[in-house]
């Protein structure tokens, strides 16, 4: 008798309770999406018999993993859907999807052309052209920074790091490198205040989350293997400031791309978790400005919820005297990375985000704190409230000599 489950993603454990469907943010707003139970474990039974049972509406899955967080039976509903999409899916708009997913290539080109690219990307008629191309005209691309974070680091921060005895490595991610180096600068400032030097990885590629969600599994696996290699060579804890990069490296590389890298779970973690634990164990002591005041509402990004680490960000923020923290119930913001940029998805994206926008606005805070960069874009465009990474808030509140 077979006593234990041997199915992939635990799908035989699905008891059809539909709790996943009930919490799915896409199912709530989109009648065309069959919901995680049917798209995941139910559909998998058919797909195993015949791949032509693959349902094209699986493209609506945000890969937010709310279904997995909710599942009382441990079924990897989201993973099952992602793997099916990579195996059987095809792009509805391959050129656009390739462009949205190629964060390293587009980022490198746009950083060089930043003085020209930024005004063009924000320019009305250019947005109309993008719209024809399949990128919704109501979206504004995040600005590209002229100087990449890696360049700034090598020029301005790297030499000073050797004065520290202990070091951490930083996986900065595409957003910090191409769009928002300030977060990387804040990270270096905070780590140095903790008494740790920062180094970069030998070679960092985009974590590949956009490639996975746009169906470019092979390319994602190549980049993943390069990152795993660099992370293993780091010889120090590898810290991040993006919940999605972290989640992708720890979980998706192994569970969705099938890489043999279980060690990533103990090597890679979010800086907020690492710093909290250092402070809690008395190894690090941060000093804060006495005149700092900020009312902050914390948004738990979906992948942060899946990691289960929102508590670390919240507790760190609470340690700052002068921070008043409000934590509402978790709700998906609806953007899901490149998903919300696509013309056909914009409406769903906004409909999902609306209840969150309302609850954040109701908090009456000066700023929203969140650990995810695409949530930041969505919330800033949906509410007008500035959105900061908790590491940036720490950096702002630090007492510096």
């Amino acid at each position, binding site marked *: 008798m077979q006593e234990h489950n041997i199915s992939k993603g635990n799908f035989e454990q699905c008891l059809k309770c539909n709790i996943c469907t*009930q919490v799915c943010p896409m199912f709530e707003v989109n009648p065309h999406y069959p919901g995680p139970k049917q798209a995941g474990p139910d559909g998998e039974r058919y797909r195993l018999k015949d791949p032509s049972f693959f349902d094209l509406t699986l493209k609506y899955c945000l890969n937010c993993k709310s279904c997995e967080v*909710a*599942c*009382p039976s441990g079924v990897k509903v989201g993973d099952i859907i992602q793997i099916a999409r990579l195996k059987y899916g095809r792009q509805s708009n391959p050129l656009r999807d390739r462009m949205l997913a190629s964060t390293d290539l587009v980022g490198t080109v746009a950083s060089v052309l930043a003085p020209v690219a930024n005004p063009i990307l924000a320019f009305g008629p250019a947005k109309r052209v993008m719209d024809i191309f399949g990128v919704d005209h109501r979206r504004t691309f995040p600005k590209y920074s002229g100087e990449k974070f890696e360049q700034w680091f090598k020029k301005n921060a790297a030499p000073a790091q050797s004065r520290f005895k202990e070091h951490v490595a930083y996986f900065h991610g595409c957003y910090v490198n191409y769009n928002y180096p300030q977060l990387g600068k804040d990270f270096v400032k905070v780590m140095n205040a903790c008494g740790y030097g920062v180094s970069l990885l030998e070679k960092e590629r985009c974590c590949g989350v956009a490639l996975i969600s746009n169906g470019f599994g092979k390319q994602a696996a190549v980049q993943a293997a390069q990152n795993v290699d660099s992370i293993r060579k780091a010889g120090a804890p590898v810290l991040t400031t993006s919940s999605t990069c972290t989640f992708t490296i720890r979980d998706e590389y192994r569970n969705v791309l099938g890489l043999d890298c279980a060690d990533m779970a103990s090597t890679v973690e979010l800086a907020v978790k690492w710093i909290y634990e250092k402070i*809690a164990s008395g190894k690090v002591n941060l000093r804060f400005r006495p005149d700092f005041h900020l009312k902050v509402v914390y948004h738990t990004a979906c992948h942060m919820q899946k*990691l*289960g*680490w929102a*508590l670390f960000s919240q507790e760190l923020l609470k340690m700052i005297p002068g921070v008043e923290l409000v934590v509402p119930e978790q709700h998906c913001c609806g953007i899901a990375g490149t998903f919300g940029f696509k013309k056909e998805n914009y409406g769903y994206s906004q409909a999902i985000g609306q209840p969150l926008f309302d609850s954040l606005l109701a908090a009456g805070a000066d700023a929203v704190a969140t650990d995810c960069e695409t949530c930041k874009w969505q919330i800033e465009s949906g509410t007008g409230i500035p959105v900061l990474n908790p590491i940036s808030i720490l950096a702002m509140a630090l007492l510096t000599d």
Partner: protein
Amino acid sequence: MKFDVVIIGGGKSGTLAAYKLARAGKRCAVVSAGHCLGKTFRREFIALGGTFLNGDRVTGGNVEGGRVQYVRTENLGENTVLEAGHFILCTGKFFSRGLISTIANIYEPVFGCDVLYAQDRSEWTVDDFFAKQPFENFGLRVDDSSRVYVGGNVISNLYAAGEILAGEVDIEQSVEKVCRNII
């Protein structure tokens, strides 16, 4: 991380207990292994500033001197534990994995609490499908203050409430009883 009360399980009884204790000014954390009923109490608990660990699972606890000192969870990992003065087990029965049944026995997976159940497996069920099944009444043995036993010894700060208890259970009353003891 220190709390007044850590509630293991975020279903009906867990969220109700959390809400009642938070209302009474206790700093509480709920570890909820899956989404469940009890949305309203969860919402109110979070609005009161309670900590709700969604989709996390308690993997084990440290019991010393007849008291639970702390518990660990899957997501918080090796370096962070949840410490508290009181702990409440609200993990329900078999579906929610508060109790695990195997071919040989029935056990409580977090602390290995004493479970009251028929030792002879043939007595777990009756043939009549529509009849009340004996296994529905299996559950934890508790003392007069709803505290559980491990290996025959009572754990002085570990309570149980809700479906996980043995016998016919009134969820609201079982929660009320535990909360009264703690407040």
